[in-house]
């Protein structure tokens, strides 16, 4: 602490100024919320309280639906669970009465556990299955609330908890709920802006790439299911107080649809959007009372319109920055020299060895007894006609496919077959034949995802914005910016990635892979779709990476590029090695020449 200098302080105020445009809308909403009771009546205070409580739930669910992309359509079940848990604890139906401020955290813990149980199918199953399982859960929670009469009061229900003074008045409770809303907004924003939030979006939009960067989907999802479940249950406790009395019929499927649609109206991957969505959907039925009977129908129409017409939701409407046109004549100008400042220089190091690898899909032998050695500090080319097994080889090394026979070693250690998420930890990074990036995230965020496993802060630390998280973020952002400089894209750092050209995506993927500071870099046709100028710059970049001691395995169709920069070349045909050697040897290899080089 004593070593704090002026520089970091200046840096902090800088980040604050940069963050202000993001925070300002939230502060605006907060100010309006605080003013509300003074300019209206108890009715609007009630509606405001309701919106705040719904937001407590939605802010957690937003991470599940909006960030992780899992369509949890039955989240009213967790609201029900929390409402009943809190009410039962406070009423003392099963054990001595618990004060409400103790009951709420207990309900949160129960909700967290059930959040994971309901979420479990999402770890293994397709989207629709998960949607169905949340729906099924919503049904049985109500059924159990009905049946377990001795505890829940059955159909007659149970009195909602009452808060002690000063929160037992309409105003007091309103401000309490606003406080809850502020805290959950802060926590969910912290998660969203941390490496965990980026990882969620990565798993959603580019799951395969996320695995290659070492992001473990189950761990991520369990963390947010815990978080969202806890918030939903706490919202349930507040909901029970607001309702004064809860019966199973208060927890309608309409409520579930409201939560769900609020997020989609708001826009995926946003926090402000779903917050506005929640507020709008809470108020809408109040000012459109004559339409009460049709409200579900209107929600459905709204949902369809969003999906078909405005998939970005409110967040996309408010995203003014990304409407500014990009320079059309921009060029990618890598500065490989800068690599020295970022990537450590390796000397020696272990070899990546494949021996007798075999893999078949049905009756097709995709790889049939392949041997391959990639040395550190060398560029190893892998060429061959379509279907010869080049990409499959990369996929076996990355762990997407488990070979049926043969062994892989990295130095002295065996590289276990399968388990793609462990490759990043072993220093293996890769790019993909079709770039797998997150279109909705900025270029900088896409690159930062590459460094996910380097973060040291835990999920809880990130949620509470503790110092280690801030340190992680600064480190990852600085490194990502520097690497964008290396690949020549730093001017596009803040741009949404789906606005970029195909060739730029290829360089983003390389920058993302370099975030790992990898021992081995697997490049899958990095030159495909690039102009001749760009290929030249790519060649320089790859050579520079190799020069820092990284072993590069390069799958490519551009023979010139291969022969220009490779130290070793392996030629595949029908899953077998046709030839292997230095570019000079391959160039004169008879079969290779007659088959591929058009000689």
């Amino acid at each position: 602490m004593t070593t704090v200098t002026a520089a970091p302080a200046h840096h902090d105020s800088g980040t604050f100024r940069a963050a202000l445009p993001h925070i300002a809308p939230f502060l605006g909403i907060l100010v309006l919320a605080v003013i509300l009771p003074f300019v209206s009546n108890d009715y609007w205070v009630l509606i405001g309280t309701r919106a705040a409580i719904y937001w407590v739930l939605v802010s957690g669910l937003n991470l599940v639906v909006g960030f992780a992309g899992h369509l949890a359509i039955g989240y009213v079940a967790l609201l029900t669970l929390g409402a009943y848990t809190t009410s039962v604890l406070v009423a003392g139906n099963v054990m001595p009465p618990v004060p409400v401020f103790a009951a709420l955290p207990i309900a949160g813990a129960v909700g967290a556990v059930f959040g994971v149980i309901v979420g479990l199918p999402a770890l293994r199953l397709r989207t629709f299955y998960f949607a169905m399982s949340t729906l099924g859960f919503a049904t049985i929670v109500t059924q159990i609330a009905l049946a377990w009469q001795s505890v829940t009061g059955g159909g007659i229900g149970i009195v909602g908890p009452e808060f002690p003074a000063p929160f037992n008045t309409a105003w007091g409770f309103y401000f309490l709920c606003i406080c809850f809303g502020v805290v959950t907004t802060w926590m969910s924003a912290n998660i969203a802006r941390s490496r965990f939030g980026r990882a969620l979006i990565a798993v959603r939009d580019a799951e395969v790439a996320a695995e290659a960067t070492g992001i473990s989907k189950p761990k991520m999802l369990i963390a947010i299911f815990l978080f969202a479940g806890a918030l939903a249950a706490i919202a349930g406790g507040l909901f029970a107080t607001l309702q004064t009395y809860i019966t199973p019929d208060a927890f309608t499927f309409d409520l579930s649809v409201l939560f769900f649609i609020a997020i989609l109206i708001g826009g995926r991957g946003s926090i402000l959007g779903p917050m506005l969505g929640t507020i709008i959907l809470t108020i809408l039925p109040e000012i459109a009372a004559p339409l009460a009977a049709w409200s579900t129908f209107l929600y459905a129409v709204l949902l369809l319109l969003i999906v078909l017409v405005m998939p970005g939701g409110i967040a996309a409407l408010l995203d003014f920055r990304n409407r500014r046109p990009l320079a059309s004549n921009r060029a990618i100008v890598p500065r490989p020299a800068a690599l020295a400042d970022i990537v450590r220089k390796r000397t020696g190091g272990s070899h990546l060895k494949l021996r007798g690898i075999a893999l078949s899909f049905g009756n097709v032998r995709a790889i049939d007894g392949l041997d391959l050695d990639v040395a550190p500090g060398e560029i190893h080319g892998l060429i061959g006609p379509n279907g010869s097994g080049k990409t499959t080889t990369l996929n076996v090394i990355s762990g997407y496919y488990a070979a049926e026979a043969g062994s892989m070693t990295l130095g002295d250690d065996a590289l276990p077959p399968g388990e793609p998420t462990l490759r990043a930890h072993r220093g293996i990074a890769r790019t993909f034949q079709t770039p797998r990036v997150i279109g909705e995230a900025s270029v900088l965020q896409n690159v930062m995802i590459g460094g996910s496993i380097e973060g040291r802060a835990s999920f809880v630390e990130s949620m509470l914005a503790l110092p280690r998280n801030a340190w992680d973020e600064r480190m990852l952002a600085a490194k990502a910016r520097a690497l964008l400089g290396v690949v020549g894209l730093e001017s596009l750092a803040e741009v949404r990635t789906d606005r970029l050209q195909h060739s730029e995506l290829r360089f983003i993927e390389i920058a993302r892979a370099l975030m790992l500071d990898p021992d081995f870099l697997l490049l899958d046709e990095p030159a495909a779709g690039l102009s001749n100028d760009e290929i030249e710059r790519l060649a320089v970049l790859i050579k520079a990476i190799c020069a820092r001691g990284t072993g590069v395995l390069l799958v490519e169709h551009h023979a010139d590029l291969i022969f220009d920069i490779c130290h070793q070349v392996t030629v595949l045909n029908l899953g077998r090695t046709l030839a292997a050697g230095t570019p000079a040897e391959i160039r004169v290899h008879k079969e290779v020449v007659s088959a591929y080089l058009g000689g």
Partner: protein
Amino acid sequence: MAISRRDVLLGSAGAAGTAAFSFPVPAIAQSEPVKVGCLAAMTGPSSAPTIGFNRGVTFAVEAINAAGGIKGRKLELFIRDTQGDPTKAVNATQELISQAKVHAIWGPLNSGEALATTPIMARAKMPDIHPCVVESLIDTTKFPNAFRMAPSNSQWDDAVRNYCLNILKAKKIAVIGDTTGYGVTAVGASVAAFKKDGADVVYQANVDSTQPDMTPDMLRAKNAGAEAIVVWSVSTGMEARMFNVRAVMNWDVPFVGHPSMSSGEIAGLVEKPANWKKVYAIGYKSCSYDAAGKLPPKSEDLVARLAKANVVMNDTLLWWIAGGIDAIELIAKAVAESGSTDSAAIIAYWNTLSKYPGYFGNYSFSPTQHNGYPTEEIVMSEASTAKNGTFALAPGYT
């Protein structure tokens, strides 16, 4: 009569005194309309009763206004469609209280809605008169503002039990309800009360109302030797299935219970009209016709007035309409008699009522008893005999 009532009013000097003291500006208040809020589930499932009640409410308001209002003050209705959703009901209640600033509230009927809104109305000391059957809604200490002008669940239960045990002379009873909150609770209460009265409850079940076949439950009830089946459900589909299964089983056990068994929809759901015989649903003396097809004189008079005003009666129940009228008249009467729309005055007036003659029944309230409807008014009626919302008395009543 008028004198004695004034005496009673003076007797409860505390309440009346405060009421008189809190008159804000009488001169302005005199011309201001009397605002009545209606928490009514006009759409959605379980909206049928409220729609019926609402016809009575509207009829009464129009009648009063046509006759010059309450001492020159018009009645103004604020109807809020709550769709049977407690969440919407809570919002609507607060809106009526804080925004519309109504003087009294009628409803709600649905139990989930009533349970959630009653404490909110109590907090605002809002005079409330409702027909919801849930027992715990009437509590003169917690909710001194809430008055019930319809039978409570236990009164229904008493009437059903009375009919089974004393008129049908059944000893072995089966109690079946649906899996909704209402069904589960009502079955539990009913079984306990039967047992307390020494009856033998041979079978009890809560059945999912969507279950396609009722044979298993009916078979088990039969095997257990049930002599009457008591039904607590609002699901007409499930009830019709039970009637059909009874016919298939060639069993002549009577069904006794919830008024929904007399709902008009059942006519289309039973396989043949005979299946709907020997079904006795809860009804009311005021809305039951005798062997000669005659209603009590006061009700005959009401039906004539309703017919003149073109109020539709054939798709609803008369007691719903009558209850709606009574509710409005109780509010109007309170304003007229206490000379004030002050909530304390209205409540104080209601607390003095003794055998107030309404169309649906005679209501009596006191500061410690807000269950205003007399149990002896509740009778069983032949479920399949609907005629303009009235029913034939079940056999056995004299």
